[in-house]
């Protein structure tokens, strides 16, 4: 049993587990931080951006970092398990043009929202087509001459251009939908998604056979936000727990950040400025809108318009309302009334929240200031946010509030400097923090924990914070990009089925109190890793017409092997038994280890010892058989 680690990124994992001759990929996150090395993609050519000193003006499309494929052949993957929509963004790279023929398992919200995010990414990229894509820079010799972080980036050859809509559709057509706690059998392996509480339809996975259990925990949350709470008890009794997707900002409390978000927003609006919130089109935005829905009225800012601009804004808002089964209890009970689970339906109805596919068209004529704009992409390298940075960056009245924790906000802002607009960093990461994780692990007690290397040491910026790392006994097995770990399993049993006819024919005997044994002689049938024991078929009667020609060619007979024996043959009862069966003349001789019985009439010697019986009997088969059966009466058969 082995784990191949294709990504070292702790929150965008991609691991492959080989388990009982099944190859299972756990998530395939797309690392878009590489986008930060590139210039933003504005809608119109910006002379300022293209002349920026210290930045490469290679004018190529943004490249995305793909998971490492050096460790194994992607076409051998049988199953891909997706834990949440952020962790599936590299799916087309895995399933398309690689010979992949397996199945992808995901929940319905994960599939639908994942599709939206992929379509959004594709639209962002295709909206600003580049005449040609530069690739020469990937040559090691040229890369060496490049400025900044690009020079030191590893594996740039694996960076790829964004996929197309066709590839997205084709990749997603391979998804098979599963519900929480659905037991899905794949060969000898059963996979089950469990609610992880992080986002709509997000799941942890249990991968198990009858005797081994691997839990895969990825992006889980114990906070009360919109998704269904995390299911914890089913993670118990794991042999191995693979832990990924902890909070990226362990020092920030999401509730505190939310308060800061609201107060900064109110301050800016009151001063007549606009607020720009670069964010993903699904996820925390639902909670932000709900929070603002309550906050704006109480802050007396009820008339401030919210704009949500994304090619998938409408779909994202609509989809969020139809997944009641995947929401927390509170929201779930709303649909019984029936009311939409999220209050953004009301914001839209009352015209407080408006959504547009892009800044083109209706938005430009309808928008009023001051306002709050939610738009992507959070890296500030592509999407409509690039336009707002250019538009609002020069005024100190405006504020940009970062809520997504995936990107360093300073790196994101770098190409826009100098910037007059205020910058506020309120990262909201609801995933588990180290305190919650250690409590969780104490509860569920896995035998071994596997995690990315960064979790085993304090953050590089805060080396003294030993509370911001995992300390476990036994210590966790750490992995980094391209590691291959052997997972510690000691398997001793396998499940087998006795056919009812066989089960009925068994004769159990009690060996000691509460323990019975039965000898089983059966024919084993193994197919697809499933094992069945059948009764031994009765030998077909030999057709009488055919005469046996030569004895030597007779096939070896199929005979029931004899059981092992245990116990001892006691002398007196044995003599009594012999007597009862007509053997009366017995001479008993004592030896060091037991007795020798001489049956004088029959001229047979029987040696009785503690652990052995030896019958010495010349050519008298019936007698020998009779004596054997008498001895067997005293012994237990196993």
């Amino acid at each position: 049993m082995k784990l191949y680690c294709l990504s070292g990124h702790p929150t965008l994992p991609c691991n492959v587990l080989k388990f009982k001759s099944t190859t299972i990929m756990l998530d395939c996150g797309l690392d878009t931080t590489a986008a930060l090395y590139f210039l933003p993609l504005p809608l119109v050519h910006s002379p300022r951006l293209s002349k920026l000193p210290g930045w490469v003006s290679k004018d190529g499309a943004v490249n995305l970092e793909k998971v490492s494929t050096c460790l194994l052949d992607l076409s051998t993957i049988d199953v891909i398990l997706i834990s949440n929509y952020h962790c599936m963004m590299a799916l087309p790279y895995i399933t398309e043009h690689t010979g992949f023929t397996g199945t992808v398992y995901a929940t319905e919200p994960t599939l639908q929202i994942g599709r939206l995010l992929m379509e959004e990414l594709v639209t962002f990229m295709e909206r600003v087509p580049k005449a040609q894509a530069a690739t020469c820079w990937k040559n090691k010799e040229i890369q060496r001459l490049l400025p900044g972080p690009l020079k030191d980036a590893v594996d740039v050859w694996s960076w790829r251009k964004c996929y197309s809509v066709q590839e997205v559709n084709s990749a997603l057509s391979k998804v098979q939908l599963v519900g929480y706690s659905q037991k899905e059998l794949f060969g000898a392996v059963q996979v089950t998604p469990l609610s992880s509480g992080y986002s709509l339809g997000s799941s942890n996975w249990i991968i198990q056979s009858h005797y081994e259990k691997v839990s895969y925990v990825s992006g889980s949350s114990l906070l009360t936000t919109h998704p269904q709470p995390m299911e914890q008890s089913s993670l118990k009794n794991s042999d191995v727990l693979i832990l990924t997707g902890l909070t990226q900002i362990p020092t920030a409390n999401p509730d505190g950040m939310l308060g800061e978000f609201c107060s900064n927003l109110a301050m800016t609006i009151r001063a007549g400025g606009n607020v720009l919130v670069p964010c993903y089109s699904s996820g925390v935005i639902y909670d932000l809108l709900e929070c603002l829905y309550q906050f704006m009225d109480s802050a007396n800012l009820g008339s401030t318009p919210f704009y949500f601009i994304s090619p998938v804004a409408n779909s994202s808002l609509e989809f969020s309302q139809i997944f009641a089964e995947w929401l927390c209890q509170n929201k779930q009970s709303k649909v019984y009334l029936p009311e939409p689970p999220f209050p953004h339906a009301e914001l839209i109805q009352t015209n407080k929240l408006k959504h547009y596919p892009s800044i083109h068209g209706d938005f430009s004529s309808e928008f009023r200031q001051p306002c709050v704009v939610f738009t992507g992409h959070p890296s500030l390298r592509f999407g409509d946010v690039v336009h707002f940075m250019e538009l609002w960056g020069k005024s100190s009245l405006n504020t940009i509030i970062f809520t997504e924790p995936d990107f360093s906000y300073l790196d994101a802002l770098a190409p826009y400097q100098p910037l007059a607009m205020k910058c506020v960093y309120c990262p909201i990461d609801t995933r588990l923090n180290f305190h919650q994780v250690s409590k969780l692990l104490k509860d569920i007690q896995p035998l071994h924990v596997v995690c990315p290397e960064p979790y085993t040491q304090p953050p590089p910026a805060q080396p003294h914070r030993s509370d911001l790392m995992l300390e476990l006994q036994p210590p966790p097995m750490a992995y980094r990009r391209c590691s291959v770990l052997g997972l510690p399993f000691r398997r001793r049993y396998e499940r087998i089925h006795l056919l009812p006819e066989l089960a009925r024919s068994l004769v159990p005997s009690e060996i000691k109190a509460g323990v019975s044994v039965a000898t089983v002689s059966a024919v084993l049938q193994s197919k697809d890793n499933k094992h069945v024991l059948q009764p031994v078929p009765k030998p077909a009667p030999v057709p009488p017409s055919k005469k046996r020609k030569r004895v030597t060619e007779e096939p070896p007979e199929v005979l029931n092997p004899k059981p092992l024996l245990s116990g001892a043959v006691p002398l007196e009862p044995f003599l009594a038994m012999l007597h009862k069966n007509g053997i009366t003349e017995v001479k008993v001789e004592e030896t060091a280890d037991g007795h020798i019985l001489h049956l004088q009439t029959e001229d047979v010697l029987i040696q009785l010892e503690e652990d052995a019986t030896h019958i010495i009997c010349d050519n008298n088969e019936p007698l020998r058989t009779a004596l054997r059966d008498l001895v067997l009466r005293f012994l237990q058969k196993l």
Partner: protein
Amino acid sequence: MPDIKVTPLGAGQDVGRSCILVSIGGKNIMLDCGMHMGYNDDRRFPDFSYITQNGRLTEFLDCVIISHFHLDHCGALPYMSEMVGYDGPIYMTHPTKAICPILLEDFRKITVDKKGETNFFTSQMIKDCMKKVVPLNLHQTVQVDEELEIKAYYAGHVLGAAMVQIKVGSESVVYTGDYNMTPDRHLGAAWIDKCRPDLLISESTYATTIRDSKRCRERDFLKKVHETVERGGKVLIPVFALGRAQELCILLETFWERMNLKAPIYFSTGLTEKANHYYKLFITWTNQKIRKTFVQRNMFEFKHIKAFDRSYADNPGPMVVFATPGMLHAGQSLLIFKKWAGNEKNMVIMPGYCVQGTVGHKILNGQKKLEMEGRATLDVKLQVEYMSFSAHADAKGIMQLIRMAEPRNMLLVHGEAKKMEFLKDKIEQEFSISCYMPANGETTSIVTNPSVPVDISLNLLKREMALGGPLPDAKRPRTMHGTLIMKDNSLRLVSPEQALKELGLSEHQLRFTCRVQLHDPHSDNDTLGRIYTHLKSVLKTYSIQHVPDGTVIVESIVIKVTSSAEEPNLKVILLSWSYQTADSTATKKKKIQL
């Protein structure tokens, strides 16, 4: 011999009052808890005294499962849980949980407020009953307790309708509830995997019908509505607020749009809008097409269909009215029917099944004079049309489901005895499985033959698989020998050696020795050598060793040669073997004597 027992308390050779008791692996499950539309007395509800004469049902039932929100499947639920008494879990899907209490309240209002019955369940009882409901998601495996697990499958029929698989150990039963094997305008088709249950309990409403294509029926329906409206008549379509109504609304809405018709379409009662809202929120339960396009256009927002007011019934001119309930047994639809029945220009279209005793059933059977309450009679002059729009599987659909699930036995409920008989024969012929159709209160017992799961030691299994070769040879099956240890409810199969070790027992050796005398002039060693060569040529398939210390070993048989000094030519051959090799020894011994 383990068996599964099934007793219908309702829906046994009958439609309505679905309530089926199943005992499997020591667990008792109630499937559906419905009421009968055709009765107003005690026969309305299933006879729960069958379960116990005195008092509450909690200790006799492990769980109750409701397949969908139609009253003939859930109408007796508050009566059962609150008035008879049941505190265990009640399982239903989310949409059913949302809609069921509304229909129950509606039913209660008609019965208590309009008909003035007492001793009926109250609004509070409906609420208390719903608190015991645990929602089910599709395909989710719900562990009711350690042994009992249930899993829901999509059934079509109405929003949130489910089929359920009940499993205890390796025994399982699938109950279909009502289902539909062809997708319609708003729902998808039922689906189940090849789960090979011991028993499939299926509805059989349309056991003998094979319906023509859906398109034809739709065209027919539209034509009839259109003709009546054209000649100035009024069309009454009695429906249940949820289900068929939405499908017909979608149908009429698109037709009105295409034909640019102006006659008003109304939908009675305030339930409509609410009902459509449920469809919007539970869009994941509708069919593929609606789910795909819902962001652009929500099919459940109707432009042509407006809310109905009681006074509209007397308006002149053509109109189409959807009114509840669907079997014309009470409420708004019956009221409108009474008003319009006298005019032959008008039409009533019955889009679903009507149970015996209802006005709907009577007029469908061609009855032209109806006795109403208070001895008044009503002449039925308007046209009566029946259009089978109920989303039940027809005979073809039922056979299709059997092919999908591959059950070992079949049991029919929710249908008429005569029709069931026909279908039963057909199923037994085509699939060669037993098919049962118990009447209410009659118990069917099905013997199951579960295999026994056992833990086999990996060493034993691997050894056996290595010996058996990659492929089993049917002509020469290998017999494997092991010891089954039964201890504290666990069954483990290990090799006999391991069993001895584990149980702390020592092995008892049983050996046999036999002397054979032989005249041979050679030395002892040469004699042994000759025996060795001879055996080698005769027993080709056995491993034979000549050990230097003066023995020949054939597998576990030891052969020695001795002779006495007095008679060096008389050799005594000692043959010694253990109990475990006794059988094969006999044959070998014979060969030596040759």
